[in-house]
């Protein structure tokens, strides 16, 4: 089983090294790939200096395009399992092995690390939680499947889904949409409880007016996904 961690990085030179160390220490069965999304804070230089395994995008693509680059790499290099992992210190590499076990045991196509099963650790702020609840409800209404944490950036997929994502992946705010995309194709999605930390570097990309855009865009995207099925 070849397994890889995809770390999309946009201006995360402050926390990136920590994340890589975390993976090397707590998830030794995994390779990793940093996708530098045209950072302006010297992330690229850091990758070079520390000899990290990285790819460098010459044009900023946003989170969707960066993650897709990772899936493309994983797919081309014959990996069986790929997992997304944020470089800002929110995610804990200790859960990766557990997620891989769950993927195999339940023969799922995707395993999501969910904050809201055991409700432990950083639970996101109040309003955000309401938003996540709403997406969860929407997905349930449209697909009949239960996903407690559709916005989680910690998700592991098998080779099958990797291929699908390498082919097409949403551009911005991709998480809920991409889950619905594979649910539509009849893929099996399960969740395991994880504890997430508050981010240690960087700021959330979603604030102010972007919140409204985010809610509307993702709602429409999910509905569109349903229409495709």
């Amino acid at each position: 089983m070849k397994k890889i961690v995809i770390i999309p990085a946009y201006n995360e030179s402050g926390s990136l090294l920590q994340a890589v160390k975390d993976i090397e220490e707590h998830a030794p069965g995994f390779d990793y790939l940093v996708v530098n999304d045209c950072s302006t804070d010297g992330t690229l230089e850091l990758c070079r200096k520390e000899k990290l395994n990285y790819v460098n995008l010459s044009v900023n693509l946003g989170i969707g395009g960066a993650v897709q680059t990772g899936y493309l790499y994983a797919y081309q290099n014959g990996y069986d399992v790929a997992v997304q992992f944020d470089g800002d210190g929110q995610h804990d590499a200790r859960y990766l092995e557990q997620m891989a076990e769950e993927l195999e045991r339940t023969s799922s196509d995707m395993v999501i690390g969910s904050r809201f099963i055991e409700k432990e650790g950083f639970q996101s702020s109040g309003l955000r939680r309401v938003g996540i609840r709403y997406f969860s409800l929407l997905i349930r209404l449209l697909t009949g499947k239960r996903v407690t944490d559709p916005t989680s950036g910690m998700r592991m997929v098998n080779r099958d889904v990797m291929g699908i994502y390498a082919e097409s992946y949403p551009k911005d705010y991709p998480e809920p949409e991409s889950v619905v995309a594979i649910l539509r194709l009849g893929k099996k999605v399960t969740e395991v409880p994880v504890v997430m930390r508050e981010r240690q570097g960087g700021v959330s990309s979603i604030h102010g007016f972007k919140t409204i855009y985010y809610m509307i865009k993702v709602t429409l995207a999910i509905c569109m996904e349903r229409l495709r099925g």
Partner: protein
Amino acid sequence: MMTVKLQIVIAAAILVVFAVLINMIRRKSLELKYALSWMLVLTALFVFACAPWLLNVVSEFLGIYAPVNMIFFLGFCFSLLIIFTLTVALSRLSNSVRTLDQIVALNEKKLEELEQALEEEKAKNQNHIADNEQE
């Protein structure tokens, strides 16, 4: 109604714009594909400038009271159409950029890895030669 003077001025202006358009296509700073719609609208304007009575005929046919209103309305519709076409083109373009960016990134990585392997191979060979010479 239009005076003959105004008619001539408008027709001349259209011809100038047409010339600019053609020159831009010639110098390849404008894609013929996107210029076609502009050529179409210029031709229509030219026809109306030469024969203003046609405006009355068309607006009567469409049931619009004033020919001027019709010009505004059609112009507006046409602008929307062009903007929409542009959004479609933009979507396609941004998808292409995305794919290209990703391919470039992955190829760059492959190249770097190959270069590194080559370096190592070279160093190994050199050591080998040095060893042989010592013997």
